[in-house]
């Protein structure tokens, strides 16, 4: 190098993607842990008070729900049902990723294919996965396949739509650079189009996983006899055990949160982090 490094700021100066250190560690502990914990405690106290004041014999207090979760955990049903639900979500969701990403990339890249298939896609997309339940039972009977099919359908559309939009909004300079280096069609997809669109596709995948987790509960209420959805409907039908109904709801919420946190971890990889602005 000739000359000084005057006009070359060191990378520590230009790390615009890092969150700025806003406040002290104590301040963060307060705002990130104590404050939300306080809100949760107020919510539980309010719930408890509302049940007591109304004198209801059916709706459970928070402590009843906690006991219900403990009971389910003790007799092994909880773990079994969680595994059953997660298994269905995993199968349907992975199938949707494997089909949706390539289909979306191709529809985004080839304008003719997009024009041909997009109207059909837009008609299928607003049909609620719940509406498919009778069809799924007709085709697959009362088996794991029915909810897996429903989860596949439900997560497919967010992924395809995200992949199409990602290709169509891609910076053209990347494609031109790739063509300049003489990449074949296949190389172009693998080395440029896929990585260039991955951040946006990952956002679609995160939305899809949320939808999949919503749908598995609904599907299990009708199409099978295991899983967290089945737990809820079974607890209601056999003995009006609302403590177990709410216990099932709590578990669904907690697992949904964990799933979302896991997918968010993927967004921290260097290969995609460039696509998420400065958050």
């Amino acid at each position, binding site marked *: *190098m*000739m*000359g000084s490094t*005057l*006009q*070359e*700021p060191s*990378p520590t100066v*230009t*790390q*615009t*993607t890092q969150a700025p250190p806003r406040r002290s560690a104590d301040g963060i502990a307060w705002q990130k842990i104590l404050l939300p914990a306080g809100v949760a405690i107020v919510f539980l106290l309010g719930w408890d008070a509302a049940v007591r004041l109304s004198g209801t014999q059916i709706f459970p207090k928070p402590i009843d729900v906690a006991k219900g979760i403990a009971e389910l955990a003790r007799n092994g049903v909880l773990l079994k049902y969680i595994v059953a639900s997660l298994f269905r979500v995993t199968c349907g969701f992975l199938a949707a990723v494997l089909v949706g990403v390539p289909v979306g990339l191709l529809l985004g890249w080839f304008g003719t294919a997009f024009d041909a298939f997009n109207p059909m896609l837009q008609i299928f997309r607003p049909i609620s996965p719940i509406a498919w339940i009778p069809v799924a039972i007709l085709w697959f009977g009362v088996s794991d396949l029915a909810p897996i099919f429903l989860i596949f359908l439900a997560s497919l559309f967010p992924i395809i739509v995200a992949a199409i939009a990602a290709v169509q909004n891609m*910076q053209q*300079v*990347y494609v*031109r*650079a790739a*063509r*300049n*280096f*003489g990449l074949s069609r296949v190389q172009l997809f693998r*080395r*440029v189009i896929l*990585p*260039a669109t*991955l951040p946006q596709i990952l956002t679609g995948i995160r939305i899809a996983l949320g939808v999949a987790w919503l749908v598995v509960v609904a599907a299990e209420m009708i199409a099978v006899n295991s899983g967290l959805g089945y737990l809820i409907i079974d607890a209601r039908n056999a003995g009006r055990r609302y403590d177990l109904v709410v216990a099932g709801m709590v578990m669904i919420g907690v697992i949904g949160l964990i799933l979302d946190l896991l997918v968010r971890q993927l967004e921290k990889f*260097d*290969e*995609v*982090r*460039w*696509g998420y602005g400065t958050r």
Partner: protein
Amino acid sequence: MKWPNVSPSMQNEQPPEAIVLVRDLWMTFAGKRRDEQIHVLESVNIDVSPGEFVCMVGPSGCGKSTLLNIIGGFLTPTRGQVIVEGLPVTGPDRRRIFVFQENGVFPWLTVEQNIGFGLSRLALAERNNVIAHYVAMVGLHGFERSYPRELSGGMRQRVEIARALAANPDIIYMDEPFGALDFLTRLKMRADLIRIWQNEKKTVLFVTHDIEEAVQLADRVLVMSQRPATIRDVVNVDLPRPRDIDSREYLQTRDRIFQVMGMDIHTGIAKEPGSPPGPDSIDQRRKVGSDAATTGA
């Protein structure tokens, strides 16, 4: 030079030493309205010798970027021919690498992965050698594993130049590569580019709207007119490098180009009517073009 498609008798008006030949090139874009046509290039002729550093300057929006994109094979001209290394250009080619105005460095790859992007045909050891060589040449030692988002604009442009050089092209096309950089960084990038060019003996075609930049860099400056653009004048810059930008010869050359472009260097006032400034990107040019066309150019 090879001339596989041209018989010796036909070479009369084509200097055999030319590596890039542009012959009677015309370019017309469709405008916004159906019957509207925007004439961007009009009968452009260029000869570039191997190893030459040629700058094309012209007012913003004149079509110089379009011209370079046609020479690079990214656009097809309406009429005329571009012959590079003896063969008509039909598309982009890995022997001629383009450095883009908007920075084409891949943000999902590290500096060394970007520089090695065009080297997948090489064996790993050789590839690493080439990468290390060009990392050092553009002064990015220590940043091999950094991602583009962690670099400054000047460093990102260095990565793109290194990526182009690493592919060992015969020609490098540069489309206002330093346009988005601050003044000091631009000065340093020019000095580094000249040093690298002197080492590598590549042919360089460099588009800029900055006359000073052209005179500091080029062996020859092609001065283009307002749209529809033609080559209005060719100015040889016979000044030793590194160039003294206070010397009388430098200033004379610079002022001559200003004069050719119809500007008074001291006042900035156009001596000819009808030279509206405008953006120069391909996307925006159509818009600007149609505006100009409706005002009756």
